[in-house]
């Protein structure tokens, strides 16, 4: 499967600041996604990162809070803006990888974010 590199792996930030998380894939992929995993919770899809166009956000997530870039088929960024302690979570990028109609998603190592 594709090698997915995500950075930073962890960070501690002050409330009110913003942090940009990067996701780099070693192959061109069509589908890239961003997830959030709050403490003790399962994964929730934030948005689908679309190459060359605006990301598609899930209900409850907005572009002003989580702007996403996807400049090419191997790279995407997620920014967590104006952070508050409620944003403390693990943020994960994933890519669809496979030859079939349905492609399993494979995940990067995640970014553990703590807001003070």
């Amino acid at each position, binding site marked *: 499967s594709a090698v997915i590199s995500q950075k930073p792996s962890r960070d501690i930030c002050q409330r009110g600041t913003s942090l940009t998380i990067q996701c780099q894939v070693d192959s061109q992929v069509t589908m890239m996604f961003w997830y959030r995993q709050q403490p003790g919770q399962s994964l929730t899809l934030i948005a689908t990162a679309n190459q060359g166009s605006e990301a598609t956000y899930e209900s409850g997530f907005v572009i002003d809070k989580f702007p996403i870039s996807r400049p090419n088929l191997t790279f995407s960024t997620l920014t967590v803006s104006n952070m508050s302690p409620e944003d403390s979570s693990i943020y994960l990028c994933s890519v669809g990888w496979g030859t079939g109609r349905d492609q399993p*998603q494979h995940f990067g190592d995640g970014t553990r974010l703590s807001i003070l």
Partner: protein
Amino acid sequence: EDKVVQSPLSLVVHEGDTVTLNCSYEVTNFRSLLWYKQEKKAPTFLFMLTSSGIEKKSGRLSSILDKKELSSILNITATQTGDSAIYLCAPLRSGIQGAQKLVFGQGTRLTINP
């Protein structure tokens, strides 16, 4: 609204035991069901099940989908301490403009004691 329920939420067994993890789902535009293992941060892909009744196996792990009952099970035989992890069930559904979306269950936390 999509719904994925995994049971049990937590399971503690001894090394060598066999375990069965359950997943039931109610998802519109269902396509496939995926299982993941999460040890630290990143979930690791285990299986993707598309057809009902066909078992998929990988070593000591196996899984099967029942589309009539809207459920799936994950079996682990001869468990080892390295199997300790959270196991996530995630139906794949079609979304807007054909986009694919995973809907994750809350997971089963499996602990294998020596």
